[in-house]
């Protein structure tokens, strides 16, 4: 389980070009947006691209994205749930 969280942290850092951030600096339970990492709405959309690129999950509505990206833990849950019997369906 931790492995997915660790992988996601790496992928987030890579997708968002967070040069000065290391994975241990990201608290998996903390909010990703607003305070902390200081991510904004474009970053959220960039994560949408990342999700499809690495996991084949396609988000087409902003609301779904908002909930999924609440924190790294939330994102990990979302990925696990979405990669059910039909991965990659929108």
């Amino acid at each position: 389980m931790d492995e997915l969280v660790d992988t996601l942290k790496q992928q987030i850092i890579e997708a968002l070009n967070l040069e000065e951030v290391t994975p241990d600096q990201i608290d998996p339970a903390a909010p990703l947006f607003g305070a902390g990492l200081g991510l904004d709405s474009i970053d959220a959309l960039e994560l949408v691209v990342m999700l499809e690129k690495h996991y084949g999950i396609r988000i087409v509505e902003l609301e779904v994205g908002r909930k999924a990206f609440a924190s790294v833990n939330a994102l990990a849950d979302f990925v696990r749930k979405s990669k059910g019997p039909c991965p990659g369906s929108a």
Partner: protein
Amino acid sequence: MRPLSITACGCVNGEGFGNARSWTPWPGSAPRLRWRTLSARPFDRFGRLDLLCKYAAAAVEMLGLTPLADGQARPDVALYLGTEHGSLDVDLKFCQSIGGPGGASPTLFTYTLPSTALGEIAIRHGISGPSLCLMAGPESGLLALWEGAKLVRSGEIARCICIAADAVESLSVAHAYAFLVEAGAEEGLATVSFTRAAFARAGGHWHDPLGRLFGFLAARDGTAPDSTLYLRAPATLRRRHAMAVLLTARRPNGRVG
């Protein structure tokens, strides 16, 4: 017409970075634009900007604008950018990202607009006056300076930051200048006027007019105070005018508001 001054200038290029007071060559052989080398003030977003934004933002940082308190803004400052190549690198990168897994990158998309550099700088420095990005060939930067100076001279705005920036990796081009033009400043690097009479004295178009201007303002080559530099109007204006830049006797220190 109000008297015009250039009160600060900045430059970042392949050799190094600096302003009228000091110049720092890049450490090491291959300069990589790292924020910590440029400035002690934090700029968390810097690493995520595209190259054009980075160079433009770095040049503006050299001007030494006072950091703003939360909620403060600068509505009386305009931001003009001149760029010959704009977002050429990113345009191509973005087009290639379209077919990729996951689709196009929204971050890259925002950088396909050279005006995003204006947005990023405006956000960092709370600048909410008029902003303009001009693309008019190799003299785009000079045009931005010219138009910005005219805007301030007209009395419509108190100050204009005029930026010239180009960054295209595949063309090995990367540099930026920034000049702060103000109305009626008492302490400046130089005063500026526009004159038809000086057109002949301007002696043709410089290959790098803004580089010439920057060097002149920094007076690093031992230029005496009260010297005048004449810069011809950019060819695209089709005017027989020159900008006369008169170096002031006093060299101001301290921060710029």
